[in-house]
């Protein structure tokens, strides 16, 4: 992942916030549904082409009392997975 880049979520995917802070990310083209934990939901909502990973991380630190140590690695991994599956991309 280009860590300086500002990824954008694929607008065809559906984020259903259902139970507490957890959500389902639904791909209508395949019918696949993935459960997202609260941190992933937080990240997904900021994949708007205006936030870099650093921006997202600093917002995360500000809004949570208890950010796990490995959060940055996890966030990068999550975004990489999204990019790989075509669930997010970079504007050209």
């Amino acid at each position, binding site marked *: 992942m280009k860590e300086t880049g500002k990824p954008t979520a694929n607008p*065809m*995917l*559906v984020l*259903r916030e259902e139970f507490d802070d957890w959500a389902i990310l639904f791909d209508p*083209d395949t*019918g696949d549904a993935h459960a997202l934990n609260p941190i992933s939901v937080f990240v997904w909502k900021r994949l708007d082409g205006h936030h870099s990973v650093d921006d997202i991380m600093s917002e995360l630190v500000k809004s949570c009392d208890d950010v796990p140590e490995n959060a940055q690695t996890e966030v990068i991994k999550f975004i990489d997975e999204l990019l790989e599956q075509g669930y997010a991309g970079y504007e050209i």
Partner: protein
Amino acid sequence: MRTPRQVDIDVTNRCNLRCKFCYHFESAGDVGRDLSTAEWLQFFEELNRLHVMSVTLAGGEPFFRSDFKELITGLVNNRMRYGILSNGTLITEETAAFLKQTGRCNFVQVSIDGSKPDIHDYIRGSGSFEKAVRGIEICKKHRLTVDIRVTLHKKNIHDVENIAELLIERLGIHGFSTNAASYMGLCAINSDALSLDTADRSVVMQKLVDLNKKYDNRITATAGPLADAHMWNRMEKARRINGENTKPGSLTGCGCVIEKIAIRADGVIVPCNMLSHIELGRINQDSLEYVWQHHPMLEKMRTRSGISLAEFEFCRGCEYIGTCTGNCPALAYTTFGEIDHPSPDACLRRFLQDGGVLPVIDESRQTME
């Protein structure tokens, strides 16, 4: 759940057939009019905003609408998948190719009620068997998922082995689901000729259980004789093990309003298309999200599971009370005029008192769904 995951839409009130057991016609869902294309498309935008994942289009006959492709395109553009409940007679190569290329079709469900024209057409009208079979073949050719629904009634229960052979062996369908003609709509009018009595139910339950042995559980049911066979066997087993030492069960037999909601052909929001007399609001006028979260009737239906069967005179002294779920509220309504009541149609005690016989099931081999 903040919004429904799925919405069942009667997209038209019209149909090219008039099946003798149709639950739609002559029910409260038979509203005598259709909404325009623009009205449905506007509503699909709301479903998109509410993050609804899938829609089931029913009716009437969905393919009867000439703007059918526009409506499907509207669903696709609004990020949804869809399924279609159809009588199969209007499916053409062109429609099937169109559905396939959307990439969003979960299934096309086609009804088959006999292994040959005279049995199927007795209910659905002359020529409908050949057309429905052709519709299935076209869907298969275009690699759409075709689900088959067999509705059991007095005149086809003795054909069920042949129906299974037609569908599984000759047409190569992975399996099929079954239910029974229910005391609703036109079936309520034709009930004497069509509804299964206790003896019919006993016979067809055993047949379906045996067929599932032969076809490796490729026959399924969420309602009707096969579903009853499995549920009632579990209830009987529990009675033998627990005797009378059981805490009464409650009205847990319906989960519909937990995940989904329905819309009538005139745009009225209802809890389920079997409960189309309960009007909750109107699309494009009332917020579906608000109705879903705040309508007192939905709230009441969702807490129905807290009503103990011990509260009903109907269930007094019943040995099955610990495992009974009271079943479908729509069937309770058509019989008693109220939804907060166990459905007499699915009452095991009544079935046995009427001389009903439970099927012999090898539970290690069988699954219900």
